[in-house]
């Protein structure tokens, strides 16, 4: 693994996540084969590819859910700290500044929208159980801070009017945005969005488009996006990486990728390609 990392030339300091030569296998199935990409600070990078191409597996390797057999994932924080994401647990990766959403929305369904975001907002606080039990002043102060942060984020994604509603009672598009708000609440430098437009209607898609742009521009968060909706990808992504059968088959600007014959073949090629669901076996 380290050998593969050393082979890389000194990458420029703009890159905040460098995925190199990642190979992930489940028994006999290879989900990612020698996949690599670099995510530059401040960009919106889209990962596209047919179903089963390994997109979600890639996310899971970045967030500590899976551990690939080969390859390396380097993360460089704004402070210049450079760490491998492979040996870390999901919660540590989140605290390092890489937050994510899930393809099949995973909210805390029995909590309110507000509480969902607040859980994200308070992960960096240092208040412990004893302070909480005794109702110490610093605990109250911390609560106020995270309350405010949560409210701001709910407003930012546009569900502030639903903040006291149970998460599972929200409309589908609202749940998507709430999940994004929860991820943003952890104060990430990089946000991984796993098919945020899946199941949303055209109006919601437009809202999402502007939301992603605002996350990128106003909050200065780097976005790595998995998406099937080409219109959305074309409009928000600065760069695109195309995966097929766990390999990167093309990368470049949206326009470049669109014209790439390998990409066209991956999508329209042999019918057997897109049979399976996204390769995320448990």
């Amino acid at each position, binding site marked *: 693994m380290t050998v593969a990392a050393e082979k890389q030339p000194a990458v420029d300091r703009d890159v905040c996540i460098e995925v190199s030569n990642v190979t992930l296998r489940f028994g006999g199935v290879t989900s990612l084969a020698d996949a690599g990409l670099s995510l530059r600070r401040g960009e919106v990078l889209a990962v596209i590819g047919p179903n089963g191409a390994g997109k979600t597996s890639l996310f899971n390797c970045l*967030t500590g*859910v899976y551990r690939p057999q080969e390859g390396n994932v380097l993360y460089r924080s704004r402070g210049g700290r450079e760490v491998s994401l492979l040996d870390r*647990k*999901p*919660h540590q990766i*989140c*605290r390092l500044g890489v*937050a*994510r959403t*899930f393809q099949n929305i*995973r*909210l*805390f*369904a*029995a*909590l309110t929208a507000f*509480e969902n975001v*607040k*859980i*994200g907002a*308070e*992960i*960096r*606080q240092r*208040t*412990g*159980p004893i302070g*909480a*039990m*005794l*109702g110490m002043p610093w*605990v109250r102060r*911390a*609560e106020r801070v*995270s309350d405010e942060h949560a409210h701001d984020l709910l407003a930012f994604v546009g569900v502030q009017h639903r903040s006291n509603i*149970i998460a*599972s009672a929200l409309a589908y598009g609202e749940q998507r945005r709430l999940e994004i708000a*929860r*991820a943003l609440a*952890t104060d990430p430098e990089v946000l991984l969005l796993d098919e945020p437009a899946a199941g949303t209607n055209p109006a919601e898609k437009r809202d999402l488009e502007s939301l992603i742009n605002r996350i990128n521009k106003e909050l200065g968060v780097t976005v790595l996006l998995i998406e099937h909706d080409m219109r959305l990808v074309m409009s928000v992504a600065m760069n695109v990486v195309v995966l097929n059968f766990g390999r990167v088959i093309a990368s470049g600007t949206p326009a470049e990728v669109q014209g790439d014959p390998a990409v066209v073949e991956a999508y329209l090629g042999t019918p057997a390609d897109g049979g399976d669901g996204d390769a995320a076996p*448990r």
Partner: protein
Amino acid sequence: MTTLSAVARRARWWNHARVRRIGAYVFAGIVVALVTGPGGSEGHYSNGLRHGLLAPRVIPFIVGGLVVWAAVELGGRQLYRVRPLVTTVVSGSQRRWQSPVVRLVSYGLLLVVAIVYPMHISEFWRVVAANEIAIYVLLAIGLNVVIGFAGLLDLGYIAFFAIGAYATAYFTGRLPIHAPFTLNPFLVIPLAIGLALISGVILGFPTLRLRGDYLAIVTLGFGEIVYEFAKNQQGITTGSAGVFNIPHFSIHLLDINYDWGLPSLPYYYVSLGFIVVVMFLFSRLENSRVGRAWTAIREDEVAAAATGVATLKYKLMAFAIGASTSGLAGVLFASKVGSITPDAFTLQYSILVLVLVIFGGMGSIAGVALGAAVLTWLPELLRTHVNPQNRFIYFGMLIIIMMIFRPQGLLPSRRRAREIRFAEAGLEGADALGPTPGSGLTS
């Protein structure tokens, strides 16, 4: 699922759901006959069964089962008419319950009753209140943190109670091995809490990564190890003979000299004080960052971790807090009763505390406290009619019935009840255990 033969099977009259339920009611009747029947501890081992199932005895129970069947099947529709009314009343009272004023006043009234009422009861009931109700309420509140808040099944919970009790014996110099100093039981409390907490962390640290059902087994094993240690190591714990003459609480501060001695009432008040404090602290904890993290873990551990919640740390915290409450109860128990034997710390008692938590409603502090008080008091009230030894049998039935009909408990926490509803609708988990059994197991 719907093969032709299945359709054909369903068509027969004896496969009609209503008819099939007769069997269940008759079976229930026989079980009740057995449970309420005479035991077989004397004479031949088959006496219990023979006398319990003797025709003249069992027939009324079978008939009773049939009558209940008829009432439910034929008159059950009437019940559905009552149902909306019940729901209105219940939801109305729940709405009122949400108002902080109503809640505060009710808690205040309950507290006043809990303080004043025991002054007017006989010594027998005072003993029950101090030795059993207060102790079990405290134990249940502690286990509620583990199972109700964090969704972890701990079957070795009583081991921490044992640790607290034996710590009292040790630090008051009543064990064969001597402590470097002896203390008043009051001063043992912080030591015992710390000791139980440390044991909780030692047990929890390696095991809390395990899946929920494995955790249950491992904690059960731990409870058994502690029990066997207490029973077999005569040189350290006096073994099954037990420890006696554990001193009572006493205060000697400046001019204040008070010794708790034999009467139960003063002990009851000490325990009540601890219960009130613990309830207050835990309810604050529930509504804090820590409590929210527990809820997140319970509902979706993967999402919680992805949101940055350190799942292992919070599970460990719940485990340790539960353990230390159990340890505190152990000190109170040892000092009040004055003697301990290993047989008070078997798996049976871990399950008993579990019953108390489930009955009141896991996750709801007030519910758990009330449920525990009621379930501890009831067997004593029915003492003349039902052998208190048999309460475990009834409690076993009670658990199953609760799980079938009211898994959220009598006075559920709103969040918990909602989670169970959602889990049943396939939306979320309600514990740190993963997907629902028997449906989409591997997806």
